[in-house]
């Protein structure tokens, strides 16, 4: 990993409103992305991720604050920035009536380069879709469209890759593959900023920012965020989770109780509580209680509640 202290992206006090101030999309956001870093913007739909990425990609003007990419100002030097970024919007935006090859060739040319010149960058990804290169983009499956879009964003060897929810609506297998590709690109020295609504993907980033309702909740490495959870987290399993959850939520000792797959994740306001206390309260033989390490999703929910 070629990470340095040189900053690839600097965002300072960015705010953005829509509808004459009625909707606050971004509220005083500041953060940096280091050169060579894989940085994740994690938050649900409507959190402000797209707005933020568009400002960095020079496609939208902020109301206040400033953003820089490779030391170029995102407003004044937009032309220089457009030369050096690879941008992949949230919606598939390539030409559906052009083939894979035609799309790639088109985007290579408008960036004043050729497929051959930077083929080494896209090779790993392109070989997977190359057998279908004469197929029109509109006829491709979701995962293949994504690979093509990534190739088109990479073909001019950008210094920073800006990816807006590249894995939304893609099945888990394709999502895993996509993140593997991002890891390889990072090795090639490309800085990547990526947004995602999937909490489990956060673990694959060097650092992440939680974003919700236009505010940054926290910025840190996934490990540090998990370490700073601050409460004891209990995993509870049993035969009827729904009734157990209803029961726990009614308990005066409960801070939060959420379902997580086949278990419940439970946090008490009482730091000294023991598994025996919990089992005693639930009065159910099938119940098992164990102490667990929180996931990124636990952390996000705890930040949301604060």
């Amino acid at each position, binding site marked *: 990993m070629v990470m340095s202290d040189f900053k690839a992206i600097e965002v300072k006090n960015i705010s953005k409103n829509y509808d004459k101030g009625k909707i606050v999309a971004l509220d005083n956001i500041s953060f940096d992305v280091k050169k060579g870093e894989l940085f994740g913007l994690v938050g649900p739909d409507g959190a402000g991720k797209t707005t933020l990425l*568009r400002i960095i*990609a020079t*496609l939208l003007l902020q109301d206040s604050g400033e953003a820089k990419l490779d030391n170029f100002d995102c407003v004044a030097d937009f032309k220089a920035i*457009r*030369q050096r970024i690879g941008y992949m*919007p949230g919606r598939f*935006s390539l030409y559906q*009536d052009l083939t894979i090859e035609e799309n790639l060739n088109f985007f290579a040319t408008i960036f004043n380069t050729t497929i051959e010149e930077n083929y080494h960058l896209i090779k790993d990804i392109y070989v997977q879709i190359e057998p279908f290169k004469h197929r*029109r983009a509109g006829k491709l499956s979701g995962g293949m469209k994504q690979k093509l879009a990534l190739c088109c964003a990479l073909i001019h060897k950008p210094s920073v890759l800006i990816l807006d929810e590249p894995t939304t609506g893609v099945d888990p297998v394709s999502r895993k593959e996509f993140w593997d590709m991002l890891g390889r690109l990072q090795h090639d020295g490309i800085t990547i900023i990526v947004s995602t609504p999937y909490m489990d993907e956060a673990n694959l980033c060097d650092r992440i920012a939680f974003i919700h309702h236009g505010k940054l909740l926290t910025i840190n490495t996934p490990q540090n965020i998990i370490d700073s959870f601050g409460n004891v987290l209990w995993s509870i399993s049993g035969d009827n989770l729904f009734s157990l959850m209803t029961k726990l939520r009614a308990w005066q000792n409960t801070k939060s109780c959420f379902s997580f797959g086949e278990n419940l994740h439970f946090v008490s306001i009482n730091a000294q509580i023991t598994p025996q206390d919990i089992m005693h309260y639930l009065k159910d033989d099938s119940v098992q209680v164990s102490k667990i390490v929180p996931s990124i999703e636990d952390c996000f929910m705890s930040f949301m509640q604060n």
Partner: protein
Amino acid sequence: MKQFIIFVKKEFYHILRDPKTLIIIIGLPIIQILTFGFALTNEVKNSKIAILNPTIDETTTKIVDRLEASRFFEIEKSINSPNDLDAAFKSGKIRMAVVFQNNFQSNLLHNKKADIQLITDASDPNIATMVSNYATAIINDAQTELNPNYQMPYQINIATRLFYNPQQIGAYSFVPGIMAMVLLLISTMMTSLAIVREKELGSMELLLASPMKPLVLILSKVVPYLIISLFNWLMIVILSVWLMEVPINGSFLLLFLVSLVFIVASLALGLFISSITDSQQVAMMISLMGMLLPTLILSGFMFPIENMPLPLQVVSNIVPSKWYYSIVKDIMIKGLGINAIWKETLVLVGMTLFFIAVSLKKFKIRIS
């Protein structure tokens, strides 16, 4: 330059891979010309006419017989005095009256000159024009047949007078009208749709995030439709001349050049529409409501502008097709040259520059 070429290439892929739209673009002018052309010729068949012939002689009888023998005319009645003409037209049965001079044959023989007046009901100007054109042709034919040996000395003068609508527009007015309409529709609507589609599909976002310059983008959107419009124009001209037998009395080169100016004006208008809209639906509505209707109503193609109330006459000046329509009429039908049309052409050039300037200024280099 490479950017420009690949962009134009891409536009052609879009156009060629959407066969439905392609058929409409190419088929529209053909269908327009054929329907208008044939509908009008059919209207003219078996038109009822009246004859005012004070001195019946060999020549007049021959001419009347010729008129009656053609499939276009049917003699409804003979009139004895010019005073009855009004009543004959008011009855609504006749479309034209053929009025011979007193002592027609003797005038023709002694003075080598005789007059026929054709009076038509121009409440439907198109039909009036056609009827008088056919009659003129038949009378001319008869004349050559009557005097096979001495052609020039003996001359029948035909004077056409249009009842109800004296400043009636020139012959075959539908051809210039269709030219204006088709070119405006194809150029304006297709260009605006092509740009707005990129906004709607999201590809505009990608193009904006690239180093591509707005001017390159705009020009490469315009070029394919310029080519298609020129092709359409040529097709209309060919169909009109060969199938509809509409003459090109003036210079073909001049006609081509002003048409080029008009196409560029329409393309610029399309660019302007695309710069103020974000959805194909709205662009389509503006093109149809804002372009097609004014072209039909305010260009003089369907209704003579002179007969409109003053406010509408003033408004008609901002409709580009009004100017083009008048130019094409002057060149094709009246056979006039650059002296007669330079003002109108200048207006079109001005409009083009205005729209290009506004669209370049309004072109958004960011999303909203």
